[in-house]
């Protein structure tokens, strides 16, 4: 009954028992932080503080402190927003879509990927809030009775759809994550010796006891949440792309945007998962659980989605030419050969060219190479958003108003600050939460554990 084809590689390496899984996953929570963690945390915290300072300066003075001008009135803020939302998508993809497809390799990585989703959507959400200028009016985006002004919010606007999409996405991802975390918190609670720690995990675990009926409901709820999260994650980046696609700006007004943005989101998100997990598995010695098999699978996803993104770029160029609209044609010609050619070709190199190396099995199973590519892809995806946004508007219909965008230190500072904030959250998570869904992982030990598979191969299935 626990048989799995020998063709499939084991997902849990070494001679593990259920108890070994418990010990290995509880270890980072119960032991002192390694020195590398403190170094990383200090750097991230300084970056975070620098970002807080720049955000306060922006709110106190106004968004005039950014590099925006009359022509380029939307730049790094929306670039960073889309970039962070996109990164978030891989987490939901791993936990929801791969659950529906019954991919067992998701179990070692879904917890951290979902954590990444939540933390990156928090960073994304900061940008529209800051850009409001008067952040204390942020509640005006909610459909509240109109004594605050005389109008309701506009439900025809993609910017309002974004409010609903992002807030639904953030909250639903959080409950999805938390429902899965409860049994693992209970595991830590039941073995905690320190009374303070025991009390905290008692609070967090909601009293979970692993009753048969509760597990039955747990599995049903996970399945339904996966079924809800799958169209949700596709809708979120679709709606983000509507922010541009429903406008009439040449270069933005394209019907290809929703699928192209979703593919790009998965692409950048998987790259970020690779970056994070390569570090986590090393620092917390999780190599037996997050092994070459997992990394290879993710590299294949990066390769496929990178190629989809490449096809989308080329389709855009073709459609611009084929449409016969000279403004549309100029928008794309200007992207590739205008003053921002370097951004366009960085994007092309990082996003279309670099993932093609993953066709080689040797390269996609090489950890150092994977790490480098994962960083390159995230740089490329940042440039993609920058190229779409800034190059489409910096040369509008009136040549006298053509201009360039250069970021101020505040633009850069806020961006760096969100990277710091993201890592502050992720590093705190990695020290206090079970980074692998150990309860789920135990269900596949007998079918995908190296020792059990070896036993099957030697003695045949029973």
């Amino acid at each position: 009954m626990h048989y799995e084809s020998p063709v499939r590689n084991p997902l849990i390496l070494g001679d593990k028992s259920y108890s070994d899984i418990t010990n290995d996953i509880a270890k980072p929570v119960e032991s002192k932080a390694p020195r590398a963690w403190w170094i990383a945390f200090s750097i991230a915290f300084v970056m975070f503080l620098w970002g807080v300072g720049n955000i306060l300066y922006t709110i106190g003075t106004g968004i005039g402190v950014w590099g925006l001008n009359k022509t380029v009135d939307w730049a790094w803020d929306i670039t960073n927003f889309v970039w962070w939302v996109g990164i978030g998508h891989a987490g939901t993809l791993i936990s929801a879509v791969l659950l529906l497809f019954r991919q067992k390799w998701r179990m070692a990585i879904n917890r951290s990927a979902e954590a990444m989703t939540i933390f990156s959507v928090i960073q994304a959400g900061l940008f529209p809030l800051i850009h409001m200028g008067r952040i204390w009016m942020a509640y005006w985006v909610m459909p509240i009775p109109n004594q605050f002004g005389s109008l309701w919010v506009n439900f025809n606007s993609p910017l309002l759809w974004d409010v609903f999409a992002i807030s639904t996405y953030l909250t639903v991802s959080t409950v999805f994550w938390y429902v899965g975390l409860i049994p693992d918190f209970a595991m830590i609670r039941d073995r905690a010796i320190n009374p303070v720690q025991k009390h905290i995990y008692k609070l967090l675990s909601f009293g979970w006891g692993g009753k048969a009926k509760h597990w039955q409901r747990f599995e049903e709820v996970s399945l339904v949440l996966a079924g809800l999260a799958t169209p949700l994650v596709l809708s979120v980046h679709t709606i983000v792309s509507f922010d541009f696609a429903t406008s009439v700006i040449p270069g933005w007004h394209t019907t290809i945007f929703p699928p192209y943005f979703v593919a790009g989101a998965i692409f950048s998100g998987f790259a970020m998962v690779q970056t994070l997990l390569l570090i986590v598995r090393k620092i917390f010695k999780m190599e037996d659980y997050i092994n070459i098999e997992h990394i290879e699978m993710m590299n294949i996803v990066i390769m496929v989605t990178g190629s989809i993104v490449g096809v989308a770029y080329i389709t855009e160029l073709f459609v611009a030419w084929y449409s016969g609209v000279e403004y549309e044609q100029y928008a794309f010609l200007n992207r590739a050969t205008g003053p921002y050619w370097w951004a366009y070709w960085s994007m092309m190199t990082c996003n279309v060219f670099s993932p093609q190396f993953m066709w080689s099995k040797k390269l996609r199973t090489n950890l150092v190479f994977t790490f480098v590519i994962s960083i390159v892809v995230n740089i490329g995806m940042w440039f993609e958003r920058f190229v779409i946004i800034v190059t489409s508007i910096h040369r509008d219909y009136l040549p006298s108003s053509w201009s360039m965008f250069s970021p101020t230190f505040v633009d850069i500072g806020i961006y760096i600050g969100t990277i710091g904030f993201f890592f502050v959250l992720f590093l705190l998570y990695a020290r206090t939460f079970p980074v692998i869904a150990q309860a789920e992982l135990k269900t596949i030990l007998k079918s995908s554990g190296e020792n059990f598979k070896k036993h099957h191969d030697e003695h045949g299935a029973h």
Partner: protein
Amino acid sequence: MGHTKHNPIVRALFNDDDIVLSAVKDLRANGFHVSEVYSPFPIHGLDEAMGLKRTRLSTAAFFYGLTGLFFASWLTYYTMIMDWPQNIGGKPNSMWFLNMPSFVPVMFELTVFFAAHLMCWSYFAVNGLYPGAKAQNPDPRTTDDHFLMEVELEGDEDALNKKLKDLGALEISKIEA
């Protein structure tokens, strides 16, 4: 659930999921009532073996989602058509149905929002899960690598104990109801 008479309970501890599953099947076939199994992870087929009914949470989620859809339809109708209709990009605002394509994203998001959140609250409520609740498992080893079975004692205690031992129980204890 649903048992009004209070029989003493015999608890048996196991260390393997396959052994627990076959033990539950064996006990049920021999007329014993397995009232609970605490396990560190979901055991496939255990709910059927124990004779548990299918959970209705997914049906509930469907109706929660429907509630969200109706709420979004009402909200967009009330704000955009009834209370303060405006000309926005020339979109028709005389009838909700004609303006509806613009509202699809919000209707979808609220459907998901209601379905997911209300289902999770229901899940916490029916399982009795809340922050700071007392641990429901009587033995802390059942979140690590042990499995605890509770069997209602009706009749011969020694026979049940022997049966459990034969089925692979490591420890057996009796709890008076």
